[in-house]
């Protein structure tokens, strides 16, 4: 049985595997490996079943609508945890803290004096041509100069195990509820394994976030009113919105529950209007205020931006952050770190070519088979071209797209993501993964909960981990020793 379980686990020297170091098992995986070896018969499949049932009965689902009837689906979950050692984590932690500091300073700068543009570090045309740069935010004072309160920085590992930042998510990063729920499920299906391995807990996330939200309140009162603004039950992350609201004990509201009067935001309650101090919004910038942005939006609240500009309400994350996680601006993040902090970047960027620059464009088009080309303002794995896996025709069509507006495209050499063991169809097989840790930035500093969301490309050989493209997730363990 046991040799079957791990039989034919392919190890390739050009891919970093989180568990195998050539033929040996890395020490952090030893316990889990032994545990899996000693599981009798089909118990592992039973555990997989149990996990599915738990996700279902706890409503950790999203709904797919077809022919008028909702079907509850679960986000695929792989039962074998992904393990990060204490030293790897402390490196990641330092790297993300540094990066986030610089990005916050960058946003403050871009929306105020713009020193970094005047000093020629970041080209002005790149900023002004970014659709997420919002002129409306120019000169707005945000509380404590914090723009990015919640960041999800996506990390990947190359064949030698080096961590790279793949992208920054500074707008409304999602997935944190899965970090919390995956851990709860693992506790259930592998009793005692977590304490045995001294895994650091992740349950404190909602209380840290809550504390930060409290501290942002513009009114100095005992119990400020904090709400979570959701687009509504049809949003695919609605489960996450309800979970976070419940875990923090704050109200979950939709746009129709809020109203702006005299530059203040109020919530409609059975006892009349109540002033709102802090809004944790999960609605995108362009839908947030129909008076200023998309006038068709029914997800936003008219006048909310004016209340924000007057400082009567704090909005988390700040509006206009998209200019900092634009994929073309990403290229300049290492420069920002040097410019604002006078430090060398700890975490590396993936080498990135901007197609807006003629020489780089030429290089990319010549070597397009070895490249991944992405649109700068798309996320979720949409609108990208994987050079090595595309047909001639797809490439030709995509090239035409690029030439229409090169500014909107970047290209990166195909990075061979690291793999980790997954339990698929009764066998343990390697699958590609990335890592999204969640960093929280409040008036008292930056905190990163030890863990994160490990996303898995469940299709064999696939390099795309996005959930919208058939990806799944894993529980992510950070060991304390």
């Amino acid at each position: 049985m046991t040799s079957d379980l791990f039989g034919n686990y392919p190890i390739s020297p050009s891919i970093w595997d989180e568990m195998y170091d050539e033929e040996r098992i890395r020490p952090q995986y030893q316990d889990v490996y032994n545990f899996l070896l000693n599981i009798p018969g089909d118990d592992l499949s039973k555990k997989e079943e149990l996990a599915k049932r738990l996700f279902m009965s706890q409503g950790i689902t999203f709904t797919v609508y077809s022919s008028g009837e909702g079907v509850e689906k679960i986000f695929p979950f792989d039962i074998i945890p992904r393990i990060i050692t204490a030293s790897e984590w402390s490196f990641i932690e330092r790297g993300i803290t540094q990066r986030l500091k610089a990005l916050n300073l960058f946003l403050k700068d871009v929306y105020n004096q713009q020193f970094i543009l005047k000093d020629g570090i970041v080209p002005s045309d790149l900023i002004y041509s970014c659709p997420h740069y919002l002129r409306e935010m120019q000169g707005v004072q945000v509380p404590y100069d914090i723009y990015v309160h919640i960041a999800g920085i996506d990390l990947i590992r190359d064949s030698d195990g080096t961590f790279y930042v793949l992208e920054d998510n500074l707008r409304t990063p999602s997935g944190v509820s899965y970090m919390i729920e995956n851990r709860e499920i693992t506790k259930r299906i592998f009793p005692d394994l977590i304490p045995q391995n001294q895994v650091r807990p992740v349950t404190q996330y909602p209380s840290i976030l809550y504390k930060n939200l409290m501290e942002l309140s513009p009114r100095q009162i005992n119990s400020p009113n904090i709400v979570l603004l959701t687009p509504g039950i049809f949003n695919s992350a609605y489960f996450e919105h309800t979970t976070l609201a419940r875990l923090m004990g704050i109200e979950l509201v939709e746009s129709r529950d809020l109203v702006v009067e005299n530059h203040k935001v109020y919530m409609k309650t059975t006892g009349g209007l109540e002033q709102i101090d802090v809004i944790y919004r999960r609605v995108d910038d362009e839908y947030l205020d129909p008076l200023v942005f998309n006038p068709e939006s029914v997800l936003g609240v008219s006048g909310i931006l004016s209340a924000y500009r007057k400082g009567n309400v704090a909005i988390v994350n700040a509006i206009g952050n998209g200019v900092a996680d634009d994929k073309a601006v990403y290229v300049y993040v290492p420069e920002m770190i040097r410019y604002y902090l006078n430090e060398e970047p700890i975490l590396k960027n993936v080498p990135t070519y901007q197609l807006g620059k003629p020489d780089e464009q030429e290089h990319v088009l010549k070597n397009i088979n070895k490249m991944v080309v992405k649109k700068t303002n798309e996320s979720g794995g949409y609108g990208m071209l994987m050079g090595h896996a595309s047909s001639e025709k797809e490439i030709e069509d995509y090239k035409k797209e690029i030439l229409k507006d090169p500014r909107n495209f970047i290209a990166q050499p195909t990075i061979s993501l690291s793999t980790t063991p997954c339990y698929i169809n009764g066998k343990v097989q390697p699958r590609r993964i990335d890592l999204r840790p969640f960093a929280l930035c409040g008036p008292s500093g930056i905190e990163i909960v030890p863990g994160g969301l490990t996303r898995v490309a469940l299709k064999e050989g696939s390099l795309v981990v996005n959930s919208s493209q058939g990806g799944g997730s894993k529980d992510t363990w950070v060991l304390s020793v």
Partner: protein
Amino acid sequence: MERTDSILRMLKTNYASSQDNRDEFTWRPVLKIFGSFEDDESITKIEKSSRKVLHYIVLDRTNPNSVFNMVTESRENARGVQDNITKELWQSLNEFYHVVREERLEYSLQFEDPITVLDGLIKQCMLYYGVADITMFRGEGLSFMNIGKYLERATQSAGVLDIKFSDNSYDLDKESDTTYWKNLLLSVSGYALYLKRYRSGFEVRNIIDQILFNVDFPRSVLYSLNQLQKYTERLRDDKNTEGFSQLDFQIGKLRSKVLYSDVQSVSRVGLHHFLTEISADFAQIGVTLNQYYFAYS
């Protein structure tokens, strides 16, 4: 039955937190509340082993307070008063009894996911409450059941508070781990209410306030006292006037005492002192009840 329910909830929360951090975690407080140990040594022997504790509290035949023994006893009691309870209620208890006797339970508790087992048992408790609520006619029988229920609940809540704070040597200003308080609230199903009502992080005084004085919290001492008074009032009739007035007097006195206290006044007299006093008063109410209503002589 009330005790069974609170034990199971306590076990579930504590087991879940034992999965968070094994080094610091100990079952000691739980064993102190629900165990019946003669000496401290036997606690020390098993306090670090979740599975042993689960066995001891859920299934151990020699522990008079084990879920197994309590359910068995409740069933025996119910068998004796079948004429006073509905058939549905008797059946739900009987079924519960057969569930805890199942041999499979022992294995699942030891080698599989204990939370599934505990959830199953908690469901039996909830079934019992639901059946009692919708089938029992509003007569004397139901009043006595509810008096027993709220007497037990108030005693449990006071007891839990007492034991949890004894770890802290009753120092209300001492900072301690938030997960510790979170678990306390979770095990009395009061976490969600706490978050909504008190907001400002974990403040020890607020926790005491919720568990002793919050009238909207179904497990608070004051809520239980209000219910106790309500159901006692229904016993008023011309026959047992002496018993009734004794009971009514004691409950009323205790209720006033709790109603006109607050966290400040409690901390002035000392939390432990206060809790011991009200626990003794609850015990006395129980004695009075037995003496005037259930004694054969």
